[in-house]
């Protein structure tokens, strides 16, 4: 532990000693590249952790610079400086958060559209900065910006910048290990699954984008006194593109990479630019190679080399689950009602007048040939597939036009058809997220206490699925069977009243299937939950079902106990291979 602490403190010490080892000019130059590094850290937070790429980050850097430049133009005391710093952090953060909320609310997944929007916004910012001469000084920019009172911009302002870098690096490395950081990584790994675990992912992404806006604003706040001038290039697309290149080359999966990228390329650029005409060609080539071969960038390379020598730069603190948390209060009467529900996509009718109701707890199996609409019924129930007519009601309230992340709040847990987990996170982290469903409050987001939560159900599940115990394994390395079990565990840990399982035994070997069946039946007995299980495997239906619904061509064909279903002529006809 001590050794990795030294590894962390060494760079900070080197930065502090730097001005004394070299000319104060090089320190001044390094100060500028450190500021670009801080903006790069914001990009890495969104891109490396959250999985969405902001292409116009200079916009927030520029806004911070213009605000602090405007305020520092007058001769001011420290009180005003603090105000300038606060404003140039908060305003960009608010703008970024607002843009993030608007855009992410409409589109899940990190398609390129968000990046193109931020690109267009930075172009807009550049044009406004050029034409609003009163506000920004136009093309010639804001000039006559004083340094911080009593601080020589050319001398010890450098130490303020190193301080700001320390603050941002510590904040980010702490953030990554908090529940919020883990949820943000889960968004990158599998946004849809996270929504079914009750997380409004658009809010998480918008918050991350706001933080990156704040970091960029803070860097901008120091840029103004450091340079003494703020011109439109500070907001433009060219700087945004360079920031992305430095972050990619430096490494986007941690707060150190972008700083390394900005500093190395910055110094090499200033050194080589005048003597080596093809300097930018070299940067472009390195950038292409990094994108094709080295997603982790130089920083990532360094970390993997360090790992080989046993230096684990990213040692996650280990927590033991000490504090048991009360189980969810499972209300008594689980009434689910499908009333003439139909869904139309283009010419094809997916569901046509599906009606059934569930009054009592226990396991209900939903069977039927391929394309009968079984999964679509669950999709309609959980808001993944908006239904055109009819009504679905659960415990009295109708579920019309709800969003998937609302379902867990209504006590509905879901396991998707293909096992859906967070492969890049460890088993423990996957389980954490499941435990936090309906329990994690806003205040817990940044505290480490939620890692200690435990619920009795988890101990039972870990007994039947022993692999859940060795926590530090990455979920992505699990076999298909184990993924099904982990997915199932995550769906039930919130102790929902209605548990929807889509082919829980698909891809499982004989023994794994038996194990899963016993876990489900125990859980059905011990909890007061209602189960709806979509399943093809008749042995599973035989062993588990209290009640069976048979669907065919988007409608309910028959329902009853398994034996009643077996003697039903209709069901035999469609099952024994007659024409569909």
């Amino acid at each position: 532990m001590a050794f990795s602490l030294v590894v962390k403190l060494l760079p900070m010490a080197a930065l502090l000693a730097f001005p004394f080892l070299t000319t104060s000019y090089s320190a001044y130059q390094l100060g500028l590249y450190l500021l670009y590094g801080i903006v790069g850290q914001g990009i890495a937070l969104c891109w490396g952790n959250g999985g969405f790429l902001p292409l116009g980050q200079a916009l927030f850097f520029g806004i911070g610079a213009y605000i602090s430049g405007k305020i520092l133009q007058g001769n001011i005391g420290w009180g005003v400086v603090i105000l300038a710093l606060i404003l140039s952090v908060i305003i960009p953060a608010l703008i970024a958060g607002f843009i993030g909320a608007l855009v992410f609310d409409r589109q899940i997944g990190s398609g390129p559209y968000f990046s193109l929007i931020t690109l267009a916004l930075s172009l807009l910012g550049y044009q406004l900065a050029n034409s609003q001469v009163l506000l920004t000084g136009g093309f010639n920019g804001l000039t006559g910006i004083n340094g911080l009172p009593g601080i020589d911009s050319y001398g010890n302002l450098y130490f303020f910048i190193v301080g700001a870098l320390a603050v941002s690096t510590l904040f980010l490395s702490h953030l990554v290990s908090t529940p919020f950081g883990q949820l943000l990584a889960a968004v990158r790994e599998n946004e849809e699954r996270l929504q079914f675990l009750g997380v409004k992912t658009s809010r998480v992404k918008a918050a991350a984008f706001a933080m990156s806006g704040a970091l960029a604003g803070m860097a901008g706040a120091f840029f103004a006194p450091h340079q003494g001038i703020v011109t439109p290039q500070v907001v433009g697309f060219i700087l945004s593109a360079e920031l992305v290149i430095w972050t990619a080359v430096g490494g986007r999966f941690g707060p150190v990479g972008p700083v390394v990228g900005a500093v190395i390329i910055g110094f090499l650029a200033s050194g080589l630019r005048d003597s080596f005409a093809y300097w930018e060609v070299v940067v472009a080539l390195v950038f292409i190679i990094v994108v094709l071969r080295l997603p982790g960038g130089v920083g990532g390379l360094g970390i993997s080399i360090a790992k080989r020598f046993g230096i684990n730069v990213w040692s996650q603190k280990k927590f033991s689950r000490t504090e048991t948390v009360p189980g969810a209060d499972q209300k008594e009467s689980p009434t689910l009602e499908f009333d003439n529900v139909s869904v139309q996509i283009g010419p094809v009718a997916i569901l046509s007048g599906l009606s059934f109701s569930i009054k009592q707890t226990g396991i209900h199996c939903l069977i039927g040939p391929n394309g009968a609409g079984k999964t679509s019924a669950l999709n309609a129930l959980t808001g993944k597939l908006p239904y055109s007519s009819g009504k679905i009601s659960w415990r009295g309230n109708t579920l019309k036009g709800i969003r998937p992340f609302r379902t867990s709040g209504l006590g509905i847990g879901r396991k998707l058809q293909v096992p859906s987990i967070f492969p890049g996170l460890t088993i423990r982290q996957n389980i954490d997220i499941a435990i936090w469903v309906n329990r994690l409050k806003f205040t817990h987001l940044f505290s480490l206490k939620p890692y200690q939560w435990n619920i009795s159900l988890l101990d039972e599940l870990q007994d039947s699925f022993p692999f859940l115990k060795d926590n530090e394994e990455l979920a992505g390395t699990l076999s298909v069977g184990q993924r099904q079990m982990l997915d199932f565990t995550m769906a039930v840990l919130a102790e929902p009243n209605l548990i929807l399982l889509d082919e829980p035994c698909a891809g499982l070997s004989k023994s794994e299937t038996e194990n899963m069946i016993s876990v489900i039946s125990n859980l059905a007995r011990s909890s007061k939950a209602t189960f709806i299980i979509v399943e093809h495997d008749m042995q599973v239906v035989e062993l588990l079902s209290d009640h069976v619904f048979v669907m065919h061509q988007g409608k309910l064909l028959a329902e009853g106990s398994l034996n009643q279903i077996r003697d039903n002529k209709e069901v035999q006809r469609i099952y024994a291979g007659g024409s569909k």
Partner: protein
Amino acid sequence: MKRRDFIKSSLTAVAATVTVQTIVGRAWGGSALKVGVMIPLSGPAGLFGPASKNVSQMAADDINAAGGILGRQVELVFADAGLPPAEAAQTALRLWRGDGCEAFIGMHDSAVRGALINVFKGQVPYIYCPNYEGGECARGVYYVGETPAQSVVPSIKWLTEENKLKKFYLIGNDYNWPRDTNAIAKNTIAELGGEVVGEEYMPFTVDNFDSSLAKIKETGADLVIITLVGGASVSFNRAFASFGLSDRVLRFGTLIDENTLAGIGAENSKNIYSAAGYFANVQTDDAKAFAQQYVAKFGSDAPVLNALSQSCYDGLIALDVIAEKAGEMSVASMENAAEGMEYDGPRGHATMKNKHLAMDIYLANAVGAEFKIVKSFRNMEPGNFCKA
């Protein structure tokens, strides 16, 4: 990039770790007087870089041949001012505090000038060479370029009288230099009883001028005053000619130099007038001698001369004259020595008034791909700002 330079520069690239570079920088300049030359080697104005470099080197050689400045041989240190202002300021600082430059000449846009002034804070003499909007009087800064008052006012007056012009259309990019230049032009037009029939400002990215050309045709403008920069000026003038406007409507600008004219093309340059302190084929003896010296030194296919690159020569000469007059290379003594200093250069006779130069201005007409001088205005006053 001759082979020898290439090897030398890649070696420095390999050795250019921070520590090595800074140790070398610390050694204080011997008796040589280092002068920083900030010219655009990249970015939109990069095409003026090579010629400016040649001209500056020529000026240094001439000054050294005549005994240098204050007896010290001049050593030029070139740096790229085509970068965004933040980085350009960085480079200037490296030259000043890192390499020990004691004076600077700059041929770059006004945004970089603002950044440099902020860095120097009047502690090092700085000569700003190209034409600019005028009206600035920073301490330790001496302006040798043309101001709108010198180039725009006499040219419009002459053109209006010669061609009985009535209606004027102003078009430029959306930033300070075009707006300030147009303000002065509008006063002159008002004095002459002319009418401004249109005034438009464009973002830098515009490449389609059809709507403006339609307005120019519709308003029946006689003269279009162009304050578009770089590529926009080329695109505008090519489209202007393609609509057949060039026969009836005259065009005038103070930033249409030989490079821009080459981009516009000989067949699109009819009735283009340009005013500047220098043109490649000004026929005065000093100018012809300068041009021959340039060709002799750099060969006939050297980068083409224009007012912007030539201004570096006047910049260094002005530095030499002011320093000699002041007796020492320091802003304190140079600040009042500058007033009234005079010299004869390729542009003709120049005297410094209120930190700017009163000088000869030439009005040229584009004939094919060449500029022919049609009128010279002797000893034009720079304008009444920066009163001592």
